[in-house]
């Protein structure tokens, strides 16, 4: 017993001395693991905060609402709300009034006025959560006529303070309101979604001159929902909350998917980084282990020793990594919140406390991977005979066998990936799992590919670098035990960076093309709220010289049992419907024109599983009616779902002649400014009309798109930088370990320049290999993100565009990481005395 303890103590000391003698190795091992933990914890913390920020922001609009009770005519009577609460309780219900209003001080600005009952809001939007410390007084909001909560930047923009009165333009009249508090900070974007003005429900009714609600928000379980549906409340439809706030949800969701993908990236980079670092630290000491085994240390003792050491290292590094990750997250959160603020609302969630599970996951990752990475080579060393354990050759042989085995493992991994992806027709989780297995397949193939590449590259580099090049190529192929995992790690990291880059690029191009195809008119004229254009406007427009045609649109939201859908009824202009079909025959548009049915947007077709020929039930003026789906068209404007039909069909079914939008087509030669002036004159000064040019909408859409993905870009770059640093450290430690080999070469007369070239060629080759492998892997990832993840998430498709820039960036990233990592070992190899290095063993 005592003996074992003594020996274990000596074992531990041997491990300690190993690092004591090689402080750089300790540094690199700790920092490699720490970086792996840090990037994962940092990105995940930031994402978690962002997710919560989103949740809070989204709570503001929909909150925990599960259902909406919506009026078939856009109104719900107060009495229905009362009946619901008094006679069909207990039920959690909150009344809501929503209307678009304009500010008399900023007439161009459209705002949502949201009337709520603050007493019923608890658990719904949680908007009271935004109140503390912002001078809001809910009592005054309820009791004082005309009291509102206004977005702080809006007050600032209008030069007003809390307590100030300002005018709202409602239905052509000015109504005065007083800001008794601020509720949210809003984007200053003039067209983007902005935070609403919040008023008590009574105030909202008085301002809008109505005695009804827009809807009732409910928190229901399925049984309750069924019960309420069964009540058959007059003129009211119970609609699931999902998809109602389509515009918000879709962006929020895009954002969340993005963040999830990035967390996955960070996790992958972290896993590989730690594995590369730790397995190297153990692999390197095989000879020592062999000696220890030879002098009678049992397998178990050896394993215990190595694992104990890994535990100490892992604990140290994980602690450092979590602290580092926190720092990282702080910077990131700020950035993410700024992006959200740009796009949606800025919320008061900068101090979001992340869920502790992230830390636990970080610890599990740091310690788990460290132990796992140490266990594999330690087990191997413990299992082999003492003699062969001492032999580096035996190790490389077994690694080569392992690489081969990994290659065979790639087959089942690829099979699993295929099965998961095929099974994932609607499941995002399965799709992500499939993606993970695809990456695993790629990683498993890397070692064999590395050998192959080294063999292929040898004549080339020998020609280029002479004997150094040849040595470098040989070195890479022969020391797979050290380079294999590092190359795989670098490849995966770079592939992810490349894949996401390609995905964003492809998405952008598709959106651009879609905008070009859809925005056929030169100028779009819209009218807000409950007011409409009529045919006279169109006739007046057509009479203007230089106008070659116009289109008319009626845009309505229809409550259906499966959620709200947007209906676009269009009387197309001279350039046609501007739709790109993704399903259905080529005659679909013509058949729609002859009133045979409707077209649905791609997301709607996906979410409701609509095939051409299926029926879609819509509530018309004469009750529910089935419309034949003729096909699906590409639409990125909403993932909630859009139905397209001819205006004439809409008019006949809904008995509604209103028009909310007119598209004006101009002759190419006409002077735009003159014509625009004429157009404005048609509508007069008093009408609340918005004019937007084709270019404006396009630019605006693209800038929203870019802002949505800016954070993705930043996180992608960040992950790249950390992968860069971490892998540089892994590569560096591999090179530093070669010190003795380089010393021999120097004794044989290799010149300093040649030594440097050899080192750099070796790391450069590794980087090049990783970069090259990352290209196909990155393309596959991009394809999966586009064809699988995006379709599962949003229901929309896009074309994969393989741009050269992200690919080149990937190769450059990998190559420069590896080459940079070679600089220090190269310099060091020349500086240190050959004699000393030769003696070392």
């Amino acid at each position, binding site marked *: 017993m005592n003996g074992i303890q003594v020996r274990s103590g000596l074992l531990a000391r041997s491990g300690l001395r190993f690092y004591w003698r090689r402080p750089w190795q300790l540094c690199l091992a700790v920092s490699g693991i720490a970086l792996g933990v840090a990037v994962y914890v940092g990105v995940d913390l930031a994402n978690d905060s962002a997710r919560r920020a989103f949740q809070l922001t989204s709570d503001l609009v929909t909150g925990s609402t599960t259902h909406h009770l919506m009026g078939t005519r856009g109104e719900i009577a*107060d009495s229905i*709300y*009362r009946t619901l*609460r*008094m*006679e069909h*309780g*207990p039920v959690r219900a909150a*009344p809501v009034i929503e209307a678009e209003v304009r500010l008399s001080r900023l007439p161009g600005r459209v705002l949502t006025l949201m009337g709520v*009952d*603050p*007493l*019923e*809001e*608890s*658990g719904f939007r*949680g908007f*009271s*959560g935004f*109140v*503390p410390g912002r001078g809001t*007084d*809910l*009592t005054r909001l*309820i*009791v004082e*006529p005309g009291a509102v909560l206004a977005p702080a930047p809006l007050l600032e923009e209008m030069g007003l303070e809390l307590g100030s009165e300002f005018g709202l333009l409602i239905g052509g009249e000015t109504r005065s309101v007083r800001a008794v508090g601020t509720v949210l900070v809003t984007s200053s974007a003039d067209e983007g979604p902005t935070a609403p003005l919040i008023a*008590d*429900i*009574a*105030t909202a*009714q*008085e301002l809008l001159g109505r*005695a009804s609600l827009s809807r009732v928000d409910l928190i229901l379980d399925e049984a309750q929902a069924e019960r309420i549906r069964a009540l058959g409340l007059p003129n009211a439809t119970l609609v699931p909350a999902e998809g109602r706030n389509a515009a918000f949800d879709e962006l929020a969701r895009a954002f969340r998917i993005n963040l999830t993908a990035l967390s996955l990236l960070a996790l992958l980079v972290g896993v590989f980084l730690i594995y590369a670092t730790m397995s190297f630290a153990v692999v390197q000491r095989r000879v020592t282990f062999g000696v220890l085994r030879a002098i009678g240390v049992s397998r178990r003792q050896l394993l215990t020793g190595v694992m104990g050491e890994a535990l100490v290292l892992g604990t140290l590094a994980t602690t450092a990594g979590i602290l580092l990750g926190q720092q990282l997250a702080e910077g990131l959160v700020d950035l993410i919140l700024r992006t959200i603020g740009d796009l949606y609302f800025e919320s008061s969630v900068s101090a979001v406390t992340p869920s502790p599970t992230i830390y636990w996951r970080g610890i599990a990752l740091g310690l788990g991977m460290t132990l796992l990475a140490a266990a594999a080579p330690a087990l191997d060393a413990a299992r082999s005979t003492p003699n062969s354990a001492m032999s580096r050759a035996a190790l490389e042989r077994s690694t080569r066998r392992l690489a081969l085995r990994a290659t065979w493992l790639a087959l089942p991994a690829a099979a699993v990936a295929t099965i998961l992806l095929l099974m994932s027709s609607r499941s995002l989780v399965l799709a992500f799992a499939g993606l993970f297995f695809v990456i695993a397949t790629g990683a498993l193939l890397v070692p064999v590919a590395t050998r192959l590449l080294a063999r292929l590259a040898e004549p080339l580099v020998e020609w280029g670098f002479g004997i150094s090049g040849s040595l470098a190529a040989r070195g890479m192929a022969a020391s797979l035990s050290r380079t294999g995992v590092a190359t795989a790690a670098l490849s995966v990291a770079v592939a992810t960076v490349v894949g996401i880059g390609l995905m964003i690029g492809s998405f952008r191009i598709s959106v651009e093309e879609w905008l070009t195809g859809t925005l056929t008119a030169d100028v779009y004229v819209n009218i807000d709220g409950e007011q409409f254009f009529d045919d006279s406007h169109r006739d007046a427009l057509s009479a203007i010289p230089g106008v070659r045609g116009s289109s008319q649109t009626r845009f309505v939201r229809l409550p259906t049992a499966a959620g709200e859908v947007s209906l676009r009824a269009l009387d197309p202009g001279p350039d046609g419907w501007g739709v790109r079909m993704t399903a259905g025959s080529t005659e679909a548009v013509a058949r729609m024109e002859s009133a045979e049915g409707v077209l649905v947007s791609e997301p709607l077709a996906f979410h409701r599983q609509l095939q051409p020929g299926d029926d879609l039930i819509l509530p018309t003026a004469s009750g529910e009616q089935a419309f034949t789906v003729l096909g699906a068209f590409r639409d990125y404007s909403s993932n909630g779902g859009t139905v397209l039909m001819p205006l004439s069909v809409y008019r006949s079914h809904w008995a509604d002649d209103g028009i909310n939008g007119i598209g004006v087509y101009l002759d190419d030669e006409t002077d735009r400014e003159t014509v625009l002036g004429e157009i404005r004159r048609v509508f007069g000064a008093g009408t609340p009309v918005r004019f937007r040019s084709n270019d404006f909408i396009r630019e605006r859409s693209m800038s929203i798109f870019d802002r949505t993905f800016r954070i993705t870009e930043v996180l992608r770059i960040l992950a790249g930088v950390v992968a860069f640093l971490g892998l540089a450290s892994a590569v560096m430690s591999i090179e530093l370990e070669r010190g003795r080999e380089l010393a021999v070469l120097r004794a044989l007369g290799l010149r300093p320049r040649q030594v440097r070239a050899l080192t750099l060629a070796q790391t450069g080759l590794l980087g090049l290999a990783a970069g090259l492998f990352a290209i196909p892997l990155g393309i596959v990832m991009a394809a999966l993100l586009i064809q699988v993840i995006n379709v599962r998430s949003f229901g929309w498709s896009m074309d994969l565009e393989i741009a050269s820039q992200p690919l080149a960036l990937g190769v450059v990233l990998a190559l420069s990481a590896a080459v940079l990592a070679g600089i220090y070992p190269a310099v060091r190899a020349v500086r240190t005395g050959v004699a000393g290095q030769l003696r070392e063993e």
Partner: protein
Amino acid sequence: MSRSICILLIALGGCAAPADGPQPAQQGNATRFLTEPSDHEYARALGSRAFRFPEDHAAHDEYRNEWWYFTGNLRDAGGRHFGFELTFFRYAMSPEPVSRESAWGANQAWMAHLAITDTDGREFMAAERFSRQALGLAGSQAEPFRVWLEDWAATGDGPGFLPLHLSAGTDRAGIELTLSGTKPMVFHGDNGLDPKGPEPGNASYYYSLTRLEAAGTVRVADEEFAVNGTAWMDREWGTSALSPNLAGWDWFALQLTDNREVMYYRLRTDDGETSPFSGGSLLLADGTRIALSPQDVILTPLEYWTSDTSGARYPIAWQLGLPGQEMTLQVRPYLQEQELNLTVRYWEGAVSVTGSQRETAINGDGYVELTGY
């Protein structure tokens, strides 16, 4: 001092630890509206009052706070024990009524709490509701008497206040009870004017029905039980505030089998001392009231319980001694877990009483309320 004002004052953040649930922003927010401190604009309980019934049973909107507080211990034919608490709170958001075009216009806000203790089933259920006094969603009236928040209501069965029907429920549990009177109304303090602090006007009007016979049904998890028992009602209104140095209080409403009742509240200061404004009543079988001052009562905690939900540690069993009466009572909860973890968090539960007075054994039931833990 009665407990109810303190319930409101917890909401003011005055005497309780902040609600520390998982979502602090949401917990407490609905009562944030209760935080307007402009006392002087409201009517105040300044002098003794000539109570007029049935009018005084209904709301007094010019005072800021008001409540109807029902608690009781019930048993079915087999002796299975249940406890209940049903409370209606009214809070004025402005001193004057407001005139609004919208039917939603209101200056009165209502909160109601329902708690049911199923001792044998070891279940405790608590729920709360809020509403404004508009669209008939909540309110009160004198004749016929009714106070309600949605379908939770206390309704006079006949032209008078009693018999009174209590009806309230959730998906999980509910009560349908009829209360009838057996003992006269008790006016606490100085003929119903109960001071809350040294300042004039820092007082409330406070009367109780300390012994009501209750009969009806209790519903627990879709099972209905026909029950009988004894209930207690507190009525109070005023515009008072709790002194800032108070941490909370321990309130006892004990109904002894010999037809006597003990009501005592101990106000605890921040440093754990008993405030001189603590007090209570010992009510004899004939309705005679003997006032209790802090000097008359010795309170000793016997047992503590820590809530899994909130982490708060409550003294849930007590010895209550009245040396002047040579009376010692042990008060023990029917169920430890009777914490209402609502927007306002407190422990209020059914208790059993044992003890003795000059060698004569005493038994009884009651309710205890613990706040500020």
